[in-house]
């Protein structure tokens, strides 16, 4: 799956840290969207980013700027501020996916299982999103005790929350 040509967009919350990782992601897919984490050596990544894919508006932010860290209500505020259906943030190294009336908040977790002061026992994880019309299916891949576990979550967008 993680070979060049299969993925159309990569959305990355940040803390790739070094250019080498950035370049690697670019080989998987040239359409790479990334926001700045506090350990990124590239200072020119933006703090937040929005993009449209199909019928969905997506927002991206590392998450250390949203206090309290990992707090759903504060993240929902950011979601309202960016005016997006799907908000993707990170920083906590813990996969979460919340659905609320305003849309969806996703945290793909840490792809490397890196240490976090916020989460104990980080399992490496990433998320694959399949956007089709008004529906998005979120597949989460987690490496737990040496095995890859996959879960999926469905979201359907109601037309009232579309274009403003």
């Amino acid at each position: 799956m993680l070979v060049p040509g299969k993925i159309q967009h990569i959305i990355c919350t940040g803390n790739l840290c070094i250019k080498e990782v950035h370049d690697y992601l670019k080989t998987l897919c040239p359409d790479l969207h990334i926001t700045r984490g506090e350990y990124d050596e590239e200072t020119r990544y933006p703090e937040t980013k929005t993009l449209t894919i199909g019928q969905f508006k997506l927002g991206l932010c590392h998450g250390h700027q949203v206090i309290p860290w990992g707090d759903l209500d504060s993240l929902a505020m950011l979601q309202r501020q960016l005016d997006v259906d799907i908000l993707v943030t990170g920083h906590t190294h813990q996969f979460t996916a919340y659905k609320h009336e305003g849309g969806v908040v996703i945290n793909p977790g840490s792809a490397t299982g890196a240490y976090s002061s916020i989460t104990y026992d980080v399992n490496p994880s990433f998320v694959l999103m399949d956007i089709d019309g008004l529906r998005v299916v979120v597949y989460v891949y987690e490496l737990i005790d040496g095995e890859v576990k996959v879960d999926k979550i469905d979201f359907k967008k109601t037309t009232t929350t579309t274009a403003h």
Partner: protein
Amino acid sequence: MMTGVAEDEDKWLAAGIAGLQQNAFYMHRAMDSNNLRDALKYSAQMLSELRTSKLSPHKYYELYMRAFDELRKLEMFFKEETRRGCSIVDLYELVQHAGNILPRLYLLCTVGSVYIKSKEAPAKDILKDLVEMCRGIQHPLRGLFLRSYLSQLSRDKLPDIGSEYEGDADTITDAVEFVIQNFTEMNKLWVRMQHQGPAREKERREKERSELRDLVGKNLHVLSQIEGIDLDMYKDTVLPRILEQVVNCKDEIAQYYLMDCIIQVFPDEYHLQTLEVLLSAFPQLQASVDIKTVLSQLMERLASYAALSSEVLPEFLQVEAFSKLNSAIGKVIEAQPDMPVVGAVTLCSSLLKFSLHVHPDRLDYADQVLGSCVKQLSGKGKIEDSKATKQIVALLSAPLEKYNNVVTALKLSNYPCVMEYLDNETNKVMATVIIQNIMKNNTHISTADKVEALFELIKGLIKDLDETLHDEVDEDDFKEEQCSVARLIQMLHNEDPEEMFKIICVVKKHILTGGPKRLSFTVPPLVFNSLKLVRRLQGQEENPFGDDESTSTKKIFQLLNQIVEALSSIPAPDLALRLYLQCAEAANDCDLEPVAYEFFTQAYIIYEEEISDSRAQVTAMHLIIGTLQRMHVFGVENRDTLTHKATGYSAKLLKKPDQCRAVYACSHLFWVDDQDNLKDGERVLLCLKRALRIANAAQQMSNATRGSTGSVMLFVEILNKYIYFFEKGNPQITVASIQSLMELITTEMQSDTTTQDPAADAFFASTLRYIQFQKQKGGAISEKYGTIKLSDS
């Protein structure tokens, strides 16, 4: 001049071919009419073309091949003649009447072939006669081709065991004798070519010799095909005779080629059993022979032989292959004191590979080889010759590739000694090879001792090996190197906390010698690896009876403090601040209030003194506030001090919007969800009001400088914070306050002087939608919002 010669040669060749073809034509006519006399006459004339001295080996070969083809037809004719009643013995005698010796001998061999097939005399007798008659041609080129002809004809007619020409009890000896004699004579002729002609044409002669070498080597191949030769015969007769000729000919080209031939052509099993004899020949060879290549070939073949099947291994032990090879190499090096370093190292490298393949469990053998390498290199200082350096790298890489486990390589005591001889650049390359090997194999380097040994080995990457400034170091390369060291540090692990702590201490010791350029790469992974250890120990309570020596989280934090402090030498304040905050949070989780406070102090000092870039300050504030918000370990006083400072910094950020946002973020410092005693509604409201004042001030500033009051974005943000705390149950935040803020925003948005901001509009709209949704939700939350009025927009 050379082209002139080549052109002439083509002319002579063409003439030779023409002559040959013409005589062949008449020969065919004679054969068709069963005219033996004429057939002989014209065949002799035809063969006379081969008497030429004018052709190079390459061209002579062309002529020879045509003659060869014609002679096949002649041979068939001779066979027919004997069926028609001609006596083969008479024919054998008849052809010797040919005028010139070369044609005579070609004809004799051809008849000889038919004679042997007729079985009227033992094969051995005819072969003996032929091989001795060929002595008549002493010209190297002509002699070689003649004897090659003999060899080709005789190949399937040797009195081998099981062949139709098998003779009496000595039949194999006879066959061997014939081939060896032909071989010996051919080699002599071949060697003689070296000295024919003027010295200035030596290069050309050597090239021509090279073209002919397979003619000589073919004889050895024939020997290897003789069924009747068993190991004993090979050992007692065949090999000694061949080696005798090889050594005695004293010719560099022949010796190199033939030794190689022997090794290629005879089975590895034989080599193993005759190892001593074979090896004893090497020191007797001419000094200029490239022995190391041949020896390496031999060792490689034997290594492959060992790899084929494990049944073979006991043989290696039985013949003491390793020690024989080892001492042979020693003798060779001794015999050639002028051998360049690359030669000695290549030999060691081949022997090492041999040892690794054949005796993988004998680390002492491998270490021995490395030891001899060190001996060879001693006194030479850092090796400059790039070929030698490459060989040393190959030598050092071999155990890594074989065992796929650096820890095994670490057991070789001479390994680091060899590395010492590499120049700094190559040392780093080798260190990188080692790290890559660890990564690829996920090698577990589990004790402090091994880590110490490893870091000693890779010290070229850890610190500057010499004092000279390295301006030539490419920045990208340097970064790549350091990142691989960082990855290595992350990989170090031991389940036992005591041992893990020791490992961390070892790594710290080494990376602190790295200098400012390296610390920003090496400190973070060590810090995070240490924090992982802290987390592991967290669960365990401090043992009041435990001794002071045991690892405790306190000790690790002391170490962490020293490690992060090292960053000040670069300086790297942003990184240091982040790491101090990480440590603070970890200390918080361990309930170590003074330690956490100390880390916060350090972070604050860095913020005050070293972070002056506005953007960096904003990020730093996010991290400080975010971390502080999560602290539960602080008592009231400490918490107050830190919070007060944080809000102070927030209010002093350069840009008003940044100030506003930082200040309202600070509101969360006074309200922590899971701790009831940390819910100070009043101070929350104070923060939000302060944020409002700053937002207002921003509007006024904008009005003053740009003539319009700027966007209402900040107000909408603050409104959302009001909502947040309202929903959390902060009694200080009333529906009325929310309502009035909403009205304020609406008014501002409708004012002419306000900058239009679609983003702010959208944010406000979605905020209103949210409130609406909450109102309609039902239950407690709905009640809370009950009295709120939303405008129609």
